């Protein structure tokens, strides 16, 4: 589904990704772990097309399409979802309005008919309910006045409504208490653990992986993948730390 080959990327003049190669197939969940400054968030931004993140070398294909040639909104319409580490506030715009416009913009781009208000609310109600979020929160402005945990939960509600083929989740576990961690983990499994979908989990810690069991774990260090293994690699990292591994 996603093929990243020898990816080099700069932020400003500074090279961050230095020859990263990674391949995800449908039905797989991959975790990317690594120390601070390794380039984990940069990878998420580069894949979703954030301005200011410049690809200098390499290629990325997504379902056979040249992902890097697409604008951010086109990548979203193609089925890529980025769960933000720091979800952004949009004052005056309700979650419902934001998501309905976003979803219908994607559908329009794909040549599908827009969802009516009623159809959209049905989907939104289901997804919010499954993540233990009440409809009042969906009517509030996007992320405004939300706690850290509520923002992350809201990202999962958005993912459920948009129903992407590939989710890149950037430290979705940070700032969550144990109960919220479980809710979010269950959400990822429910929405994304499917034969035609894939997930790239970017995380510092092993704990989310207790709930979302990865098929592969990669260590990202110095802008490239330095080691790949199964779920047991995460436990090893938790025990020994990244320094031990690098040594």
């Amino acid at each position, binding site marked *: 589904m996603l093929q990243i080959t020898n990816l080099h990327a700069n932020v400003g003049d500074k090279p961050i990704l230095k020859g990263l190669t990674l391949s995800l197939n449908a039905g797989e969940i991959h975790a990317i772990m690594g120390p601070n400054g390794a380039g984990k968030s940069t990878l998420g931004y580069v894949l*979703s*097309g*954030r*301005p*200011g993140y410049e690809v200098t070398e390499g290629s990325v294909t997504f379902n056979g399409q040249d992902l890097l040639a697409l*604008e*951010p*909104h086109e*990548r*979203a*319409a193609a089925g890529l*979802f*980025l769960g*933000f580490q*720091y*979800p*952004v*506030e*949009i*004052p*005056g*715009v309700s979650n419902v*309005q*934001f*998501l309905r*416009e*976003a*979803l219908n*913009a*994607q559908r329009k*781009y794909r040549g599908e008919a827009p969802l009516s208000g009623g159809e959209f609310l049905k989907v939104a109600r289901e997804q919010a309910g499954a993540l233990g979020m009440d409809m009042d929160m969906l009517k509030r*402005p996007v992320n405004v006045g939300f706690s850290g945990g509520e923002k992350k939960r809201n990202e999962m509600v*958005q993912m459920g409504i*948009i129903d992407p083929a590939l989710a890149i989740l950037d430290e979705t576990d940070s700032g969550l208490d144990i109960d919220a961690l479980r809710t979010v983990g269950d959400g990822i499994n429910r929405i994304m653990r499917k034969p035609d979908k894939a997930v790239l989990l970017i995380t510092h810690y092993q704990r989310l992986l207790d709930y979302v069991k990865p098929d592969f774990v990669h260590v990202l260090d110095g802008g490239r993948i330095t080691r790949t293994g199964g779920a047991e690699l995460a436990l090893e990292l938790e025990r020994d730390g990244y320094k031990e591994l690098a040594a």
Partner: protein
Amino acid sequence: MTNDIEIKDKAAWDAAEKVADYEHGWSSDIETDFAPKGLNEDTVRFISAKKNEPEWMLEWRLKAFAMWKTMEAPDWAKLNVPPIDYQDAYYYAAPKAKPKLSSLDEVDPEILRVYEKLGIPIAEQKLLAGVEGGEVGGLPQRRVAVDAVFDSVSVATTFRAELERAGVIFRSISEAIKEYPDLVRKYLGKIVPMHDNYFATLNCAVFSDGTFVYIPEGVRCPMELSTYFRINAENTGQFERTLIVADKGSYVSYLEGCTAPMRDENQLHAAVVELVALDDAEIKYSTVQNWYPGDAEGKGGIYNFVTKRALCQGRNSKVSWTQVETGSAVTWKYPSCVLNGENSVGEFYSVAVTNNYQQADTGTKMIHNGKGSRSTIVSKGISAGHSNNTYRGLVRVAPNAEGVRNFTQCDSLLLGSLSGAHTVPYIEVRNPSAQIEHEATTSKISDDQMFYAMARGLNAEEAVALIVNGFAKEVLQQLPMEFAVEAQKLLGISLEGSVG
């Protein structure tokens, strides 16, 4: 002269087609009667004669004209306006009078095209075009009575009979001067006096048409009233005059929409709007101003110098101004409330958008003379391109006005790094019991917000429109429903080309 104008029209049209999208940028080749070009006493007499006005009206106009000649254009606003040549314009243009028609087929198709583009339903179109029996045959779905002002004249008003049954008078001001002279004389020039300011005085001398509304005591106007203003002819100034009187315990909601064709030269629009609310009366006045703003290089566009003022004369009277200002090259406009009545209420909700080289200096004045009077000001300024957007407001509390309250919120949103936002609040409090609050913010659309919206599937322009609509929400939700939808779209359209 007709040939000459058609050729000029063509040139202006061709030039205009090359510039940025402006939805209402069409002009119509309608046969037009003009007054001789230029401004002098004869022009004033010509207009008055065209309207068959009574002698008192002509005298009033001439007095204003004499006064205007001694005045100078104000220069205190943060606007850069080249000197206006008042002799190089027409002060009266009217679609040529036609005999009564029996069906829409006989109406000049150009005029019908105009109404269609303005979104006026067929039944109302018939009436506007002067087709006999146009009012019969079922009511249109949209229950809004319309007065259409085309260049200098009101083309017609609709729903007249039904409004009359409720006792509501809804007329072009020219008709009202003849039919209800006592009412008009009682209030005309009493809220905005003749000597008020340069543009208001000019308006007194040369105003050509506009709307008059009277809501009798205790009547809630059965539908929303609306005026479409359209500048069509070239080199023509539009000087309309609106007077709304809400008698004791009455209510009216009034909508005003404006469009003009794209032209290379600047055109002057200097309107005066006067509102009076007596005891327990309420007037809700909503404007969506979408005059042609000029092209991306700042060429052409309307100079919009408007004086709007409400007199809250009665106890518990209330006037609410809501404006969405997206058009015009230059906007100079301060819809105000003089709160004389005890416990009277004034409100001002404004969204002003400037893009490219547009300039707006707009705000309000809340003059608290009555005890316990209250006012709310919410202003949202959005600046993009090379534009400048100024909020200028005055809150004044008179020495005898006990227990006055005001809340003001001024928010500015900047797009790009070349636009300007300015806030100039004047607060004059002469009574120690007053409670005045002022909040102001200036922000930019952040890269984070843009990317977040785009990562969810919105393109850059959709993302800006969404964020801007959120920013302006408090004001937009004050508009009547159908206007709100139009205004939301308009904000997006006005900011096209301002990103990426």
